[in-house]
């Protein structure tokens, strides 16, 4: 459930950034398995300079999502990312809580 009154609301931030002619990508938690820190539907928005608002995890994978978002902004093709203990990058990007998440990253246009 999302409240709109929060000052750091990612979707309101995205609209503000677009109004400022900034390129924006939106990352959304599409699916979770096990113990995931942020519920399905959570957003992280990123601009072309790597500024971001919101979260898709408790901070574990935001860095990787921001990096992917920069590619998506540049190339325009949406990406599906998956993070978790079974992921090959788990030793450096795994979720400390042991869950798995799938994150969809797309350009806002």
């Amino acid at each position, binding site marked *: *459930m*999302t*409240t*709109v*009154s929060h000052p750091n609301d990612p*979707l*309101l931030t*995205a*609209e503000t950034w*677009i109004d400022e002619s900034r390129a924006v990508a*939106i990352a*959304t938690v*599409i*699916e979770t398995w096990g113990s995931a820190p942020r*519920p*399905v*539907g959570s957003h992280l928005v990123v601009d072309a300079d790597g500024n971001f608002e919101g979260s898709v995890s408790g901070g574990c994978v935001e860095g990787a999502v921001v990096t992917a978002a920069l590619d998506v902004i540049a190339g325009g093709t*949406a990406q599906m990312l998956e993070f978790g203990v079974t992921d090959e990058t788990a030793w450096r990007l795994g979720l400390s809580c042991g869950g798995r998440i*799938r994150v*969809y990253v*797309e350009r*806002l*246009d």
Partner: protein
Amino acid sequence: MQLASLQRLNAARRKRIAAILLADLDSHTERIVLEGDPLDGPIADLIEDAFRSGRSMAFDATEGRGFLNVYLPAPRIAIIGAVHIGQYLTQIAGLAGFDVRIIDPRTAFATSERFPGVPLFTDWPADVFLLDPLDRYTALVALTHDPKIDDLPLAEALRTGCFYIGALGSRKTHAARTDRLALKGFTPDALSAIHAPIGLDIGASNPAEIAVAILGEVIQALRSRPLSLSGDGAP
């Protein structure tokens, strides 16, 4: 996401209207469904469940593979009466994630000492509602027993279609109350929306327990509410 979708979504959220973004992950198409829009098609049930539960989800149905993200307004509770039960109710309702405010023109009751950290409105409810209107994601809890203070908010909540309306008072008090509201044109059917005696029937016997009973009933109403509440029967 398309910019037009984002703008439509944010506009709905600013107006506290529930909305769903429905994305087809194969065709990369999407649409916004607002609560109250006519629902049809194979995933109408999924959409209805999502509006009710507030849970977003990926789906993989025979009709396609997609994702629906539901954006519900934050549920609020407007408490009429800065009374003892209200002191407990504001605390536990805040813990449960409700955005709570107290409305009571009696400034001796509505003090920040008695309600630390709680938004307090010390104007008459009619004036408060002009600036901060009730809506369908607001519960109205009337606790003063005083018709001068409680009646107008109850009528306003009935007209608005608040997801929960409850009023403190004995059956006799409530019978007198419904007689007064009937004179304002509310039908018996409309008046049956008021929960009175207020709260779940758990044998609550002190202000804190009554607050628990009220909050339980508010949550029950929120999670089982019909999707298109209307003011039918209201004058």
